């Protein structure tokens, strides 16, 4: 019996993209139901009454919330394709730890807030401070990449895995920010492993067929800035 899989989300959202990437890697067919992240529909409030956020995966009527939790759920519930999380407990720990770090609101390095801070920095000195934090965080992630990849092309080894998805979902928006600021964040001279990884990841179908093209994201960004609302969902 074919299961019914629906994804409540919005295609420019990196958190929604994470789920789409996982579904694609597992060859799971699903219906994307576009939700406006700024207007909470009845359907969204019913599916995620506690947090009221996208993405929400609805599998045979049961809702699952929180992007990284949904990715783990997809890995647990479907056996098709390689596992997204490593089977070795120590490797699985590293994947989970770094994915948490990437999303952690309590560390200095946080994707969206830092890039917003960068744009809004009032002085050159303040701007440099923010840039320093960003690069410090990227250097940590470079170390994580070297440890997790063990010489292979992805954090997950030969195949794209949980941590690749956790970080890779931001690559579309990162390109937008690089274009707007003229700064290369994934710099081969500073973080060669990550720079190489980003190139491989972004040329993979998992990324190309899920994340909207940079120009489309730039348009959305400009439109949302014009309205004075935050770009991310």
């Amino acid at each position: 019996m074919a299961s019914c899989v629906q994804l409540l989300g919005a295609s420019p959202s990196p958190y929604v993209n994470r789920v789409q990437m996982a579904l694609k890697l597992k060859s799971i067919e699903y219906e994307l139901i576009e939700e406006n992240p700024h207007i909470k529909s009845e359907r969204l409030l019913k599916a995620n009454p506690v947090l009221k956020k996208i993405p929400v995966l609805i599998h045979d009527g049961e809702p699952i919330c929180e992007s990284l939790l949904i990715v783990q759920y997809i890995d647990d519930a479907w056996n098709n394709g390689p596992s997204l999380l490593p089977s070795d407990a120590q490797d699985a720990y590293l994947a989970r730890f770094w994915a948490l770090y990437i999303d952690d609101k309590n560390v200095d390095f946080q994707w969206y807030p830092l890039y917003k801070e960068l744009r809004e920095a009032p002085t050159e000195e303040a701007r440099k401070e923010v840039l320093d934090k960003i690069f410090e965080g990227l250097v940590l992630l470079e170390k994580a990449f070297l440890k997790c990849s063990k010489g292979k092309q992805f954090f997950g080894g030969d195949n794209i895995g949980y941590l690749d998805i956790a970080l890779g979902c931001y690559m579309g928006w990162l390109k937008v920010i690089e274009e707007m600021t003229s700064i290369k964040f994934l710099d081969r001279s500073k973080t060669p492993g990550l720079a190489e990884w980003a190139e491989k990841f972004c040329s993979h179908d998992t990324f190309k067929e899920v994340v909207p093209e940079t120009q489309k994201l730039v348009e959305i960004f400009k439109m949302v800035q014009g309205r004075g609302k935050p770009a991310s969902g």
Partner: protein
Amino acid sequence: MAEVKLFGNWGSPFSGRIEFALKLKGVEYEFIDEDIYNYKSPLLLKYNPVHKKIPVLVHNGKPICESLVILEYIDETWEKGPSLLPKDPYERALVRFWTKFLDEKCVPTLWKTCWSIGEEQEKAKEESTELLKILEGTLSDKKFFGGDSIGMVDIVANFISYWFIILQELAGLQVLTKEKFPKLGAWIDDYLNCNIIKENLPPKDKLTAYFRARFEAAAAAAK
């Protein structure tokens, strides 16, 4: 034989969670008490350079950090004994959702309610009440968050059962009472009555004295 060490603090609910999990699984470990509020030891900084916090589990020399991730690691590594996470994928997703909700929203907000003052405290009190209502609803007709027996959600909610009760009394608040939250009240009684829990809680008078001293220090600093 595997070597297991746990870097924690006698009064911390976060290292407390790990101790409950290790005891539930029957894993022998060495507890290293870190005086984290005053000092970060070189060993701690070596094992947790990113966050510089406890708890840190060190298994055969390899550090495992972040309490929720440590709990998953324990469940995967020591398969004998009761499971911390259910086997069913959907039930697992629910457990992960509630533990994340507790850690990211409930614990910080409840903590803030006790330590803030004035308007900030009023706002935190309101938020705490809303969060507790959600938890009350989740318990519905279950004895524990895990059903008939303790599960990972109960262990992660430990802060609410013991530490918050002590803190709210010291702060002169009545945010969580049996009258307002009967199911949570019953859960607290049942949870604290479990042998494995009550035998491993930090002594109430020691914890109360410790928090009282911190309240007094904070009040003095505010003047």
